[in-house]
């Protein structure tokens, strides 16, 4: 009997698999499961988890890692509302300073977007893909189901213990998000969220072809990782089979005729916003010491239209930090390019130091002076003036 059931189950699964393969050309878009403004009816033990989640959210709000930059914060919140439409009121969105690629949605509507997602998306359409995907998880009640599964498998205290632990170290908010994300959705749920998310971003007027482009970019970034230590990225670890999913999305994007966008994507505003925050975003990225990935991102950003001088400057900074054979020479060339375009004032100073090391004091002096002109209130002014006075 048991064997029969197993055989039948297998048959059903196999049929389903065949069906999926056949349907891969034109995937069906799943429907939302919960209505806007949904309030879950809690079991007694579930409310305990909810309490923990609310406390975690308070820690997120108080965290210094939460981005308080109003323009950036408002922009992301607007984008979430534009894609989430009627569900907008269910979400509370926080942009978190973390250079890795991720976004997450909790069962209570707390959405976190890591700044690493901003350095990686090449357009508003791609960012809309990421946000649409997370909203889809919520609308299809995946987040709620995941949340309800937590207590089955794990000691809640160990997941959410963010209190003022005296003995033992409280888990920082950044890592907490990682812990939450380790509770991955199933492959099927991810595929569903891909498709509903894609529909949501399409309905909001975004380019459906961005849905698979972002996956391809992430795969390429993973391939550029220099060391084993660099891979896999957290996102690709919790979102497996990127290539297959990109394929499904590509099939979908080609199958639809795009409706005329009521409100076309505003790429200029997005580009200007990333450009305005580019320096600290890239400084965070460089600090990860993932040089292969950083190099790839800089190439992407140059294409995306980030200010040329800044891209050269951060490539030079990355090379100086890596400090392998030939990197100093390459950095010198990058600084030279940076100083010929609009770049952070530090480009002049760092270029000056390299010129000094290369026994070109006259050229170094010029760069040091340009640095002080560009940044009269530099905190290291005395040091740079000393160098100027020392060189002939």
């Amino acid at each position, binding site marked *: 009997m048991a064997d029969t059931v197993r055989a039948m189950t297998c048959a059903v699964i196999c049929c389903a698999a065949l069906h999926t393969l056949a349907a891969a050309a034109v995937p069906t878009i799943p429907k939302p499961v919960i209505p806007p403004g949904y309030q879950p009816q809690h079991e007694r033990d579930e409310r305990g988890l909810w309490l923990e989640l609310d406390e975690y959210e*308070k820690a997120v709000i*108080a965290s210094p890692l939460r981005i308080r930059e109003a323009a950036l914060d408002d922009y992301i919140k607007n984008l979430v509302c534009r894609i989430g439409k009627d569900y907008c009121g269910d979400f509370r969105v926080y942009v978190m300073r973390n250079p890795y690629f991720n976004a997450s949605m909790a069962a209570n509507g707390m959405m976190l977007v890591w700044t690493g997602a901003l350095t990686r998306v090449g357009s508003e359409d791609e960012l809309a893909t990421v946000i649409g995907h997370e909203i889809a998880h919520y609308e299809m009640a995946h987040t709620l189901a995941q949340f309800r599964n937590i207590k089955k498998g794990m*000691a*809640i*205290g160990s997941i959410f213990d963010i209190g*003022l*632990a005296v*003995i033992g170290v*409280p888990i920082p908010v950044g890592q907490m998000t990682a812990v939450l994300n380790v509770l991955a959705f199933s492959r099927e749920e991810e595929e569903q969220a891909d498709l509903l998310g894609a529909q949501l971003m399409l309905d909001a007027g975004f380019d459906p072809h961005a849905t698979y482009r972002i996956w391809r970019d992430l795969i390429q970034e993973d391939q550029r990782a220099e060391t084993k230590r660099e891979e896999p990225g957290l996102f690709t670890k919790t979102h497996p089979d990127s290539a297959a999913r990109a394929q499904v999305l590509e099939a979908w994007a080609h199958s639809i005729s795009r409706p005329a966008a009521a409100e076309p994507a505003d790429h200029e505003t997005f580009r200007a916003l990333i450009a305005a925050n580019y320096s600290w975003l890239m400084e965070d990225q460089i600090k990860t010491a993932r040089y292969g990935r950083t190099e790839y991102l800089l190439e992407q950003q140059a294409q995306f239209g980030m200010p040329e001088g800044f891209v050269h400057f951060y490539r030079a900074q990355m090379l100086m930090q890596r400090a392998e054979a030939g990197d100093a020479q390459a950095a010198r060339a990058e600084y030279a390019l940076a100083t010929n375009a609009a770049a952070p004032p530090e480009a002049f100073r760092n270029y000056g130091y390299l010129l000094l090391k290369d026994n070109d004091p006259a050229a170094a002096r010029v760069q040091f002076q340009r640095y002080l002109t560009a940044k009269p209130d530099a905190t290291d002014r005395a040091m740079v003036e000393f160098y100027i006075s020392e060189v002939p």
Partner: protein
Amino acid sequence: MRRVVGICVVLLVCGCTTSKQVTPVARSGSIAAGAQILLIQSDIKFSVITAGGVLEPQPDWTEKARSNFVSATRRELAKHGHSLTTIDANVVDEDLAQYQKLLGAVLGTMFGYPMPSKHGAFDSTLGPGVSFLKDRYGADYALFVSYHDSRASGGQQAKAIIAGMFGLYGVNTGSQSGFASLIDLTTGDIVWGRLVSLGTGDLREPGGADTTVSMLFEGMEGG
């Protein structure tokens, strides 16, 4: 057989109620009389340990535990002529959150990993930067408290008894532990601190909260 179970239960219960562990620290000198004390109960929580050994926070009992704790603290401080101020639990004070983290780190070095360079001296401070709390909440001292009260569910208690019959101990039937620390809001100095693991005092009952509070705050007046 019944006697064996009986003995095991007694052992278990005794094992619980007598496991009081206390690590106190205090500066010399006492608190000025009639002080206004700000209670920062960041993390008072009541959980149930299920038969699976999972710690499940209980919102209703947590709420009760928090309110009983505040009342008991108010009564305890009144005995010494001090009065109590509290903060709305729904308000997120971002500046305070940073000092809570700092205090956690400092207390960690005091209770957990003492710094050899201190030579046992008790002179840790959060610095005068914390004095903004004095103006913001009109208090002379801040009393930071974290306390976790957990009880075994019926299933977990049964498991403990059965385990005891087979000579196996270490089935968690609950714990009551936490810390309290008093900060002088003018100087930022840590005036007093105490880390406890009590095994008694049920925060769900006012009487239990009184027991907890009097044991937790013992010696706060300083010497």
